């Protein structure tokens, strides 16, 4: 950083000042005028001088040294008169919170070595500016916040905490970080904490939150700020080049069930058009490659036909020379197809049983049909509580307690809270379906006629899959890690003379399709081979048929042991690394899942110039107070020192 100067003198004063060095030099060229003194004899003097003349070069140097010292002194005075100063940064307030973004986008290398290091350096510089009595706190945040250093006046501790911050692959959310910081800044909370710690309470000064981030997060409501005064320090250069993989998934081929298809979506965040090579590898071996040109700001979809793939790890990589490598790779784990265990409890349902025994359905699921009396057996109780089945279909019956499995209730609702049924309505008309839901894909329901239906009350978090003019007819809702679906209409009904159809659906082509979708979706991960994917840092539920412990091998080879939490399901949350994780049980790989970034906000590297804080927009650096750090005092002290040295040398000087 270059110093800024301030002129203190007028032109004629400068002229006088600048005339001094030539005057000094010319004085040195003029011989010293000596006073003649007559002495009895110069004999001894000459001899004394001769002794000192032995090192006359040193004498000459010493004389020149005096000249140089005088010139140096003058130079220092001139520079001091120019009042050089560095623009320092003055911190605002005495309570400081350093919020340092360590999300995935901070790994971008547009700043050297990367944005996080840059942010850390800026934060360290700010810590250096802290005056005595200032207290600081360090919080690192991605989608969660972490207090790296509690409030302290120890600058060394703050520096250590800042230096210790590690980058993550997570997405960004400032809300939690601000909440943590605001909690610390809130004097009431601090006072409470002080009481608890039996220390003296602190006064209620607002804190300044220095947010060192690239701003890749959503709007933050103003109320989150509390007593905080935010200062946003944007990190990152404007318009860095980046091409990101936004999605990557594997689907079954529409026409050929055995064939898989890899679908990916790429986006160009660069201001220029890019031409990138995309390669797809299966278990490390090159499977396919493509070259894609993407206009700036545009998205391109690409698809690769994979053929028959039983299992393996697909890795898609974009050979883009951009400054953000995290989003240039994506993984999909194709797990071997495991038929779902499906239990159908029914007093007898011919169309459904028929649909469950098609060739396609047989591939997806192993179906066991039991009568309703089976619900009362011990065998059912054990199987339901132990999670032995992936899906239990209750046709015109319902259990007393919900099983550890996905469920589909036909003509009934689950016995849990939130579920309710209305009065029967004759001939409700289907008016809408949700084609985006996996269970309702490719279904044409307009030719389906219902004879009677009871609208279903949607529980919290539930989705309406089939809506009618009388109310929801098919609803799905989550329960812990399971999904429960319920229909408000019956498929068949027992009457005298056998089963009578209550809807035209079983004879429509959409019915077997619906059954297949249900087996795929509720049966558990067989339909979409690549659906096992998680966001970094987010937990994932792992299923394993066997009880006991399983281990998860991370992409870097590290392994984590997991004990069964409940019914063979396990929550795994150590998904910090991007890549493919292997679930191992009994020494062999049971399944794999992938952790991918897939966050357009992280991939959009352009730093935000201002933070959106509700009604208020906080511009970057708006809170900086420029402080002029003048150095004329040390310069004058140095000049005084030079003067003393010169005087000393002059007195040591002997003769020409």
């Amino acid at each position: 950083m270059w110093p800024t100067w301030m002129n203190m003198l007028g032109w004629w004063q400068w002229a006088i000042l600048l005339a001094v060095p030539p005057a000094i030099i010319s004085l040195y060229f003029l011989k010293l005028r000596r006073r003649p003194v007559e002495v009895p004899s110069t004999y001894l003097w000459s001899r004394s001088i001769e002794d000192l003349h032995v090192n006359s070069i040193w004498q000459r140097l010493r004389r020149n040294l005096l000249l140089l010292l005088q010139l140096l002194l003058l130079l220092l005075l001139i520079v001091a008169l120019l009042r050089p100063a560095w623009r320092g940064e003055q911190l605002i307030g005495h309570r400081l919170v350093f919020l340092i973004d360590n999300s995935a986008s901070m790994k971008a290398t547009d700043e050297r070595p990367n944005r996080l290091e840059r942010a850390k350096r800026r934060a360290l510089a700010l810590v250096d500016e802290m005056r005595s009595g200032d207290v600081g706190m360090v919080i690192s945040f991605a989608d969660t916040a972490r207090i790296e250093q509690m409030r302290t006046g120890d600058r060394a501790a703050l520096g250590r905490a800042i230096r210790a911050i590690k980058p993550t692959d997570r997405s960004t959310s400032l809300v939690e970080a601000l909440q943590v910081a605001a909690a610390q800044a809130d004097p009431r909370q601090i006072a409470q904490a002080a009481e608890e710690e039996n220390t003296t309470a602190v006064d209620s000064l607002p804190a300044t939150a220095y947010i060192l981030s690239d701003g890749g997060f959503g709007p933050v409501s103003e109320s989150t700020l509390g007593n905080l005064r935010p200062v946003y320090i944007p990190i990152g250069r404007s318009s860095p080049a980046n091409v990101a993989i936004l999605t990557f998934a594997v689907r079954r081929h529409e026409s050929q069930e055995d064939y898989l298809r890899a679908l990916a979506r790429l986006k160009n965040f660069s201001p220029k058009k890019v031409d990138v090579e995309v390669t797809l590898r299966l278990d490390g071996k090159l499977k396919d490659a493509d070259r894609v040109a993407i206009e700036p700001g545009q998205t391109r979809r690409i698809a690769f036909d994979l053929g028959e793939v039983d299992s393996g790890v697909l890795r898609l990589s974009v050979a883009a020379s951009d400054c953000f490598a995290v989003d240039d790779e994506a993984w999909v784990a194709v797990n071997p197809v495991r038929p779902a265990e499906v239990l159908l409890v029914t007093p007898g349902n011919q169309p459904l049983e028929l649909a469950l025994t098609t060739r396609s359905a047989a591939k997806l699921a192993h179906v066991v049909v039991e009568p309703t009396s089976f619900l009362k057996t011990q065998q059912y109780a054990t199987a339901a509580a132990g999670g032995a089945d992936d899906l239990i279909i209750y046709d015109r019956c319902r259990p007393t307690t919900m099983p550890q499995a996905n469920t589909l209730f036909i003509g009934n609702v689950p016995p849990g809270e939130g579920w309710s049924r209305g009065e029967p309505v004759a001939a409700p008309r289907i008016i809408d379906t949700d084609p985006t839901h996996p269970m309702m894909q490719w279904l044409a329901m307009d030719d389906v006629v219902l004879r009677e239906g009871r609208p279903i009350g949607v529980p919290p978090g539930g989705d309406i899959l089939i809506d009618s003019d009388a109310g929801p007819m098919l609803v799905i809702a989550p329960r812990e890690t399971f999904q429960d679906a319920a229909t408000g209409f019956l498929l068949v009904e027992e009457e005298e003379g056998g089963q009578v159809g209550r809807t035209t659906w079983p004879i429509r082509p959409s019915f077997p399709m619906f059954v297949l979708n249900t087996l795929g979706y509720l049966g558990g991960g067989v339909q979409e081979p690549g659906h096992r994917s998680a966001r970094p840092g987010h937990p994932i539920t792992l299923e394993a048929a066997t009880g006991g412990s399983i281990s998860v091998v991370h992409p870097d080879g590290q392994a984590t042991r997991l004990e069964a939490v409940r019914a063979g399901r396990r929550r795994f949350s150590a998904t910090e690394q991007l890549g493919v994780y292997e679930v191992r049980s009994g020494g062999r790989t049971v399944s794999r899942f992938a952790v991918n970034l897939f966050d357009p906000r992280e991939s959009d590297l352009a730093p935000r110039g201002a933070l959106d804080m509700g009604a208020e927009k906080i511009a970057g650096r708006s809170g900086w107070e420029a402080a002029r750090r003048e150095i004329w005092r040390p310069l004058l002290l140095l000049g005084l020192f030079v003067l003393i040295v010169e005087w000393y040398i002059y007195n040591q000087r002997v003769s020409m």
Partner: protein
Amino acid sequence: MSTTSTLLSPELLARLEKMELLSRKIFRGRMKGERRSRRKGQSVEFADFRNYVPGDDLRFVDWNTYARLERLFLKLFLEEEDLHFYALLDASASMDFGEPTKLRYAQQLAAALGFVGLVRGDRVKIETLGQAAAARSSVFRGRRSMWRLFDHIESFVPGETVSLAQGVKNFCLRNSGKGIVVLIGDLMDKAGYEPALRYLLAQQMDVYVVQVLSAEEIDPELVGDLRLVDCEDGDQADVTVSAPLMKRYKQTLAAFVESARDFCTRRGMVYLLVRNEVPLEEMITDYLAQRGLIR
């Protein structure tokens, strides 16, 4: 001839009357005097016997021995002769420094020593270095010559330009006699004092070297940037007086004095350094008496 002199005070003269010059050597004198001589002669002090040879003065035959041994022996007596005392003064311009001037001090010293010599009947010769080789100088002998001697000494004026070596050489050419010689000067000759002293040494005289230095030379009170001008040859030395230089000067002076003392001692000469501020009486009664020139 004046009968007053400022050279020596009457009190000092009174003290000097009781003194005599001493020589560490026994020289042959020129005339009868009060000094024992190498020559055998007519004193009361018996020296030796020797066989009579025809032509010897019968007055010295020891008749008592002849009566006993019937052989003729001659009785020999020690001769008592006068002593030659020379004082050689440096009257160059450099001697015109100090208070009193070094020359004045040298004159007083020469006068005092010369007076002692006169009192004891010695031959006294006081000369300056600038005296030409051929020029004869007067010899003083006997108390009567005191005022003449003083006048002679008073006539010396500073400003002679002859070098120390040349002056001493001329002196040696003029005076071949043996005796005591006292060289009084500052020895500050750029060619060195050694050749001059060697000339004196070659004369086989009893040499005393008295170096007179002024207080300005021993403790110069100089300050500032100066151009030192030699009063004799006009030689210049530019100095900036500083503590190290003064230290160096004093070291040089001490080394010079020490080398002169060493030079003299090794060659049987007596060296004496005198400041012009030392009172003459103290100088004679203490310094010279200690060195054995005077008793």
